[in-house]
């Protein structure tokens, strides 16, 4: 009964702890960069004004809490239109795109995502004036200790 | 060189443990469950390497019934189990 399939997952999944100790890498993997380009239509992104909060050490990547906040008054003429979440190492770079309106009141979303490995997660916000901002975080995904999965 | 000499000297003071070669992989864990005689969990003190190896291999193959040892021994090769057994036997001279 207890032939944990998680081990296979884990072998793929650990690593990159050393990476965490170095300053956050600038370069993203090609697919994530491509997905972000598609989202922004190639426009420049200011690397500020977006905070992405994810627990730094995750023993399971199955259900990872992620909270995004963007600096914005969320008024009728100055608001966040979209917040998109991207990741570096899952099979697909896209996670979600949240569509906000002035009625949102705050540029704030909280959700739960999947992460297949230690990696960088990035949030990109599209503002009502068509400009883009981003924030990112490096997280460590180890493995669930003594969890059996069959 | 000096350190080595000192350790050897201290071994004379504190018993033969320091002079021991390092325990093989996994061997140090055993004493977390197998201690003095008179427990529900059998003591390994005084058991010879052949007996211990035989038991470990039987747990590993499933020939001998177990609650936990079957799961643990599967994490070791036959050679590793034999090395653990030899080390456990050698502990009877210690302490």
């Amino acid at each position, binding site marked *: 009964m207890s032939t944990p399939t998680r081990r296979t997952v884990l072998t793929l999944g650990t690593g990159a702890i050393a990476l965490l100790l170095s300053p956050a890498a600038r370069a993203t993997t090609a697919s994530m960069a491509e997905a972000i380009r598609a989202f922004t239509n190639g426009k420049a992104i200011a690397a500020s004004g977006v905070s992405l909060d994810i627990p*730094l050490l995750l023993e399971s990547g199955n259900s990872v809490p992620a909270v995004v906040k963007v600096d914005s008054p969320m008024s009728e003429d100055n608001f966040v239109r979209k917040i998109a979440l991207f990741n570096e190492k899952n099979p697909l770079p896209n996670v979600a795109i949240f569509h906000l309106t002035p009625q949102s009141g705050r540029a704030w979303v909280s959700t739960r995502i999947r992460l297949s490995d230690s990696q960088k997660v990035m949030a990109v916000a599209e503002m009502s004036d068509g400009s883009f901002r981003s924030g990112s975080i490096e997280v460590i995904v180890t493995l669930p200790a003594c969890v059996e999965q069959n | 060189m000096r350190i080595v000499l*000192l350790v050897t000297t201290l071994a004379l003071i504190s018993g033969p443990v320091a002079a021991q070669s390092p325990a093989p992989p996994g061997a140090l864990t055993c004493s977390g*469950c197998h201690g003095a005689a008179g427990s529900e969990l059998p003591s390994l003190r005084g058991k010879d390497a052949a007996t211990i190896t035989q038991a470990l291999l039987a747990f590993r193959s499933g020939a001998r019934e177990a609650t936990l040892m079957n799961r643990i*021994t*599967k994490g070791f090769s036959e050679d590793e189990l034999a090395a653990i057994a030899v080390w456990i036997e050698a502990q009877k001279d210690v*302490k």
Partner: protein
Amino acid sequence: MSLTDRRQILGGLAATATVLGAPYVSAQAQPHVIVIGGGFGGATCARFLHRAGIKVTLIEENATYTSCPFSNLVIHGSREISAQQFSYDALKSEGITIVAQRAQSVDGDARRVTLNDGTTLTYDRLILSPGIDMRFDALPGYDAASAELMPHAWKAGAQTVLLRRQLEAMEDGGLVVMSVPANPYRCPPGPYERASLIAHYLKTKKPKSKLIVLDAKDQFSKQKLFQEAWANLYPDHLEYVPLAAGGKTTEVIASDKTVVTEFSRYTAAVANIIPPQQAGKIAQLAGAADRTGWCPIDPMTFESKLRPNMHVIGDAAIMGAMPKSAFAANAQAKLCAQTVAQLLRGETPAEPKLVNTCYSLVAPDYGISVAGVYRPGNGVFVDIEGAGGTSPLTAPQDVRTREAAYSNAWFGIITAEVFG
């Protein structure tokens, strides 16, 4: 004995060594290892270092150690807290120097530990085994003061007794609520053993009462075994609410013992709040903990990835697949002692293997277990495939009874190895 002047002590020992016929040994050559923390990890490590002929000083402020393993039986009411308590007398009589103070700070560059009375001690290698601290900033409404009303009981001792007293004082019919955090935290299956034993207590002593377990995750250790046992043994006394059913606690209100979750709120007669945790404070002060709050180590040597000559064992370290358990801390401690002795001799340690074994009680006579075998991999410990796993899902009662008996035997043996 003056601790500041270890050269004097070393000089004394060197003199002894000279008498025994090693005239080349100088005082400086005798390495000194400091161990901070006298739990399952630290006390074991001090003992094995001492037996390996290494001069060791154990820094532990408490005169007695109170064991977390089996403390759920104290909450259950079938075991006294005194049975959980161990002195350091045996270690002292073996000749291990124990300093009954708190380590106030560590200067990794100077290899110096400052104690709370201002005394300093220098080391060649330092072993940190500080266990965990509660993160009182992590769950809104839960701090040290509210823990006196809604105990965590996640460090054994006064908190354990408080939770037991609250359960005993509760009227039959009262609601008990447990809040369980997301990983990582000390003892992955511990909350579920506790839930089981509280449910057993309610079923036998307060049958109109009920326990609700609010969990911030969907998967946990020995889950199938626990859940099957709960369905059989405690269908009316234990309700489990996983993350997917809204089990994540977002806030607590200590004044009326209210636990707020994402979608609901519960006002309890007794509330056991297990908050998020981090490595013990001295690991943070020593610079061995990273921004996660835990300590990254090299699994070959347990040496900190952040501070050379510092090793971290037990719950405080990021061990990967190896859980934060007493058994694991004890196993790591023995290996760490051997490894540090080798490093001090200038030897290169071989790649280790480690084993963890962990029993949980679903009822006093119903035990289940999980085991794992680990090797270094990806900078942490990884499972060795094909080994380890849990007790069988279906097994006759005598297997469960036997595992409960083994569990009990294990506690006697491991505490004898550490403190006896």
